[in-house]
């Protein structure tokens, strides 16, 4: 299969399940909402060493709970407890501290939830107040089934408003696309096209810097303490010393890693990214997997691309 001259490998990406929260960060201007969201999703690239994976969801919400400009973020961790720890730390340190920012649950009705404002409220030193919107009114306003409880925490520019709890749900992490190009410049340009296309998709985030990973990993290492190490078969400089996966003309490989709220969202984003990356100078589009041993979600490239033509 070829798209704009780029060969699509007959392979699949292997993704796994994590727990996810989806929040909307609002502020007085889009720039400040972006600043707060960028800060809270920093150092959240890989679950291997970052504690969680997180990113800003592409399309800005048309409406936000408090009517101000907002940015949606998705955070993912292995368990509800780990997710709560990460969400509370990040909202507390990066959103509560950002000028004029507020933070609300953006997942809607879910079976599970974690504490958020109910832990951050103590920063108010007893001067915090809560507001509760009755379920009957909340349901009319936002399709919610549970009462919405907010905390108003006094801060130096006014008050920080945050939901008492936020919903969580099972989500999918580790969807990916490998872009194999003839040069570093061409490959980076293709990866940037892929990122731009994926950022138009809802319910997905790209947790790595600029949405792109250059240090893809394989499972295990010659060093026993390491659970992951550099993806040697895809490193151009190791072409002659290890068993390589690279065709002769490939000099650079970049990976796009995609986390999302559902299998469908991740699949759609992979297809959009892969299609956008194809073009002159891009030899192949591949995907990373571990022989089906790591994750329960397998995204086969060719059917995905055929299904989204």
């Amino acid at each position, binding site marked *: 299969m070829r798209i704009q001259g780029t060969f699509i490998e007959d392979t699949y990406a292997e993704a796994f399940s994590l727990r996810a929260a989806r929040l909307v960060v609002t502020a007085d201007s889009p720039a400040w909402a972006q600043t707060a969201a960028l800060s809270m999703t920093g150092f959240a690239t890989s679950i291997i060493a970052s504690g969680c994976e997180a990113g800003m969801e592409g399309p800005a919400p048309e409406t936000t709970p408090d*009517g101000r400009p907002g940015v949606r973020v998705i955070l993912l961790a292995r368990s509800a407890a780990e997710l709560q720890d990460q969400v509370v730390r990040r909202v507390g340190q990066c959103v509560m501290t950002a000028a004029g920012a507020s933070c609300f649950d953006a997942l809607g009705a879910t079976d599970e939830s974690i504490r958020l404002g109910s832990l951050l409220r103590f920063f108010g030193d007893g001067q915090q107040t809560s507001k*509760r*919107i*009755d379920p*009957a*009114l909340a349901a009319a*306003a*936002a399709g919610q089934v549970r009462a919405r409880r*907010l905390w108003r925490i006094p801060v130096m520019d*006014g008050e920080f408003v945050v939901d008492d709890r936020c919903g969580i749900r099972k989500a999918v992490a580790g969807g990916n696309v490998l872009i194999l190009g003839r040069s570093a410049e061409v490959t980076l340009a293709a990866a940037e096209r892929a990122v731009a296309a994926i950022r138009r998709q809802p319910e997905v985030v790209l947790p790595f810097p600029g949405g792109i990973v250059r240090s893809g990993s394989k499972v295990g290492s010659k060093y026993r303490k390491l659970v992951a190490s550099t993806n040697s078969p895809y490193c151009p400089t190791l072409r002659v010393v290890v068993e390589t996966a690279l065709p002769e003309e490939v000099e650079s490989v970049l990976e796009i890693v995609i986390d999302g709220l559902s299998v469908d969202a991740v699949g759609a984003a992979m297809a959009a990214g892969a299609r956008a990356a194809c073009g002159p100078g891009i030899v192949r589009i591949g995907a990373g997997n571990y022989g089906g041993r790591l994750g329960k979600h397998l995204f086969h490239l060719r059917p995905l691309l055929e299904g989204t033509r």
Partner: protein
Amino acid sequence: MTLRLMLRGWPYPPGVEAEAPDLLPERLASLARGAIEDRRVRLGREEVRVGDLFAIEGTPGDDLTLAGDLSAFARIGAGMSQGRLRIEGNAGIAAGAGMRGGRLEIDGDAGARAGEGMTGGVIVVRGSAGDDLGAPAPGGTRGADRGAILVGGNTGARAGRRMRRGLIAIGGDAGPLAGTEMLAGTLVVAGRADEGAGTWMRRGTIVLGAGSPPSLPAFVPSGSGRFSFWSLYDEALRAAGARLPERWRAARFRRFVGDRTGSGLGEILLPAPGDTMEGGG
């Protein structure tokens, strides 16, 4: 499925008060037409059959409509916990008292003490309401404790007295001493409030759409700004059918805290100059 009971008339002299605790959706839903007709309505010291007072049509279910001027009926919807009860007319004293859930809609006016001691549900009064809206039941110490009361018109004195949680929204003006002794919760008055709003309030929020700053010296200015939490209330209220001024959405408010003769953690929000709201209702 809707059951509709139409008041045949009211042949009794003024001052005779009726009470019909069985006229709730949850109590009639499983009854046959004959059993509903045999239910009793207390009239002073006497009792009469529901079938003698009301013409009945429709099928029992979660939806019950009472049509006619029910001003003489006390405690309509009292203790209701589920379903929808609609009054096509006025309701008497203490409508929705002790309500725990469901939705009570009154197309006309409600008498005094509507929603007293309620702990859940929604009361919608499209007309005006009397004194002590959402106040404690006689002998009680807490007013509305959860739930919501939406009034389209005006209210009498002491709306929201000693309310503990929940929301009371008044589309028109409020009488004197609105929110007096509030323990917490939110009282919204789209129009004006008479003297004494917030007197002795301990916590909670009173939002006033128009009028001058609190005249009580026990309230002190505490800055101004756009309050993020208010936007959520604004949206929820509009979605529930409350008619709020459009400019209310992004209004800046002046904030006053008090009553400083007590714990002083309550707040009164008033539109800031330049963001004056247009009349409520």
